């Protein structure tokens, strides 16, 4: 179970996208995990064959616990071992705890226990959540989707049936209900010992994502304010050139390909970071680690409240069009609850843009273990003095929150200066 954030200590396995014996490639998505940040797709970081899986959808797994093993193509053996009790699974050796930013999704160690031979319940995360919400036991449902997958309709039918037939039926005759297959556990025992009023086992409460996300943000931000000695810098940037360039560029583009100012701003941040790499990286275990790649965590507010800062990878090497596409994709997936594990763990710096609602400047809180956060306000027409003349210009206030353990204000100043310079020469970005 990878750590998908500094404050995550467990996740619930939602779905396996691959099954034992499947050939998998680096970067492929093998599983989906439910966390405080929604359902995250877990990628693998090596090629091979999915050998054994140790957890089934619905199980909560601590961070660092082995989810599955991957073996080299030659090593894979089809094992026909019988289904092991879950107790064996719990005894599996834990492998190293994933580092906050380590892409150690695929464990290297080979646990010795017998494999789980059954296939997972085939169900989409959405349907799974629905089942939890409605208190429907997935094991009692026959999926009618492709490959026996459980679909929304199945859940709805099962929920209806459950409602129609209260769990402790007065008649000991099990009434067969559509889709739900009664199991031994469900058939009311004929013995008197069980009181007829005994309540059905309470359905697991649906996870409250709002609360979970608030707690995740609370933990990360408390840690930031406790551990990071922040310093703050602010600069005003004349955006005339950048906005003119953008307007002209956009007249040449169809509506679908038009660039939003934020694309240009992110690119300018990334280019400035190549000049001041000290702000791009982490503070881990008392040491400053500069990252070579520039992965910008872009704060995206969610409609239902809370925010996520998924990483846009390698911003410095992307063209404007690649960046526009990457952002489009990322924002849609963030809101659609379809992020990948690397996007939650890879950010090397955060950019937050709060200009949408007229905020002029943002003094941000650094997301640990990162060492800097860039805040962008609204671009507003303001008085601007230059060459002894007073004029009106579109002005952006950019701020930098820096970790004083890693850098000093002087470095931060050089960064903001480079950022400004890049925005005066957008065509060179």
């Amino acid at each position, binding site marked *: 179970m990878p750590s998908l954030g500094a404050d995550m200590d467990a996740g619930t396995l939602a779905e396996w996208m691959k099954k034992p014996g499947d050939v998998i490639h680096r970067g492929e998505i093998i599983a989906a995990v439910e966390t405080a940040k929604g359902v995250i797709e877990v990628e693998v970081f090596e090629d091979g064959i999915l050998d054994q899986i140790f957890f089934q959808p619905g199980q909560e797994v601590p961070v660092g616990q082995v989810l599955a093993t991957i073996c080299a193509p030659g090593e894979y053996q089809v094992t026909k071992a019988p289904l092991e009790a879950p107790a064996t699974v719990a005894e599996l050796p834990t492998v190293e705890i994933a580092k906050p930013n380590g892409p150690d999704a695929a464990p290297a160690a080979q646990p010795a226990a017998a494999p789980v031979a059954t296939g997972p319940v085939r169900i989409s995360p959405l349907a799974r959540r629905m089942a939890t919400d409605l208190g429907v036991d997935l094991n009692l449902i026959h999926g009618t989707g492709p490959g026996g997958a459980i679909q929304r309709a199945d859940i709805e039918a099962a929920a209806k049936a459950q409602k129609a037939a209260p769990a402790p039926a007065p008649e000991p005759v099990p009434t067969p209900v559509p889709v739900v297959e009664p199991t031994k556990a469900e058939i009311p025992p004929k013995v008197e010992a069980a009181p007829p009023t005994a309540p059905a086992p309470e359905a697991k409460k649906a996870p409250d994502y709002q609360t979970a996300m608030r707690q995740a943000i609370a933990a990360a931000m408390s840690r930031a304010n406790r551990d990071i000695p922040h310093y703050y810098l602010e600069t005003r940037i004349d955006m005339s050139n950048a906005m003119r360039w953008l*307007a002209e560029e*956009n*007249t040449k583009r*169809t*509506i*679908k390909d*038009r660039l*939003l*100012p*934020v694309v240009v701003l992110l690119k300018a941040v990334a280019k400035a970071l190549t000049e001041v790499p000290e702000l791009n990286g982490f503070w881990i275990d008392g040491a400053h680690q500069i990252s070579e790649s520039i992965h910008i965590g872009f704060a995206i*507010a969610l*409609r*239902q409240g809370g925010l996520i800062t998924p990483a846009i990878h390698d911003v410095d090497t992307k063209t404007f069009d690649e960046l526009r596409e990457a*952002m*489009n994709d990322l*924002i849609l997936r963030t*809101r659609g609850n379809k992020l990948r594990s690397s996007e939650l763990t890879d950010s090397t710096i955060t950019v937050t843009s709060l200009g*949408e609602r007229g905020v002029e400047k943002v003094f941000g809180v650094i997301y640990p273990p990162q060492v800097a956060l860039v805040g962008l306000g609204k671009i507003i027409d303001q008085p601007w003095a230059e060459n002894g003349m007073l004029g009106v210009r579109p002005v952006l206030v950019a701020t930098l929150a820096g970790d004083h353990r890693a850098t000093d204000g002087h470095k931060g100043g050089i960064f903001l200066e480079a950022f400004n310079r890049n925005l005066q020469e957008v065509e060179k970005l």
Partner: protein
Amino acid sequence: MNTSELKQIILEELGKVAPGADPNDLELDENVREGLDIDSFDHLNFLIGLHERLGVDIPEKDYGKLNTVNEILQYLSAVKM
């Protein structure tokens, strides 16, 4: 296409970029970005949606004329009818 059909399309496209919010609750003279709490990204996707449904190309310089449902309706009626 009459005005009420056009209005229906506008509300549908707004609904797509603001899931969870109901565009029917908007006052016709209310700023749609504020009323539905959508950002510039959603707004652009809304305009792209209108472009695909109606085949109108809205130049960037006209974005400022499209703040409320009434304004959008007026603008599209002028181009479309």
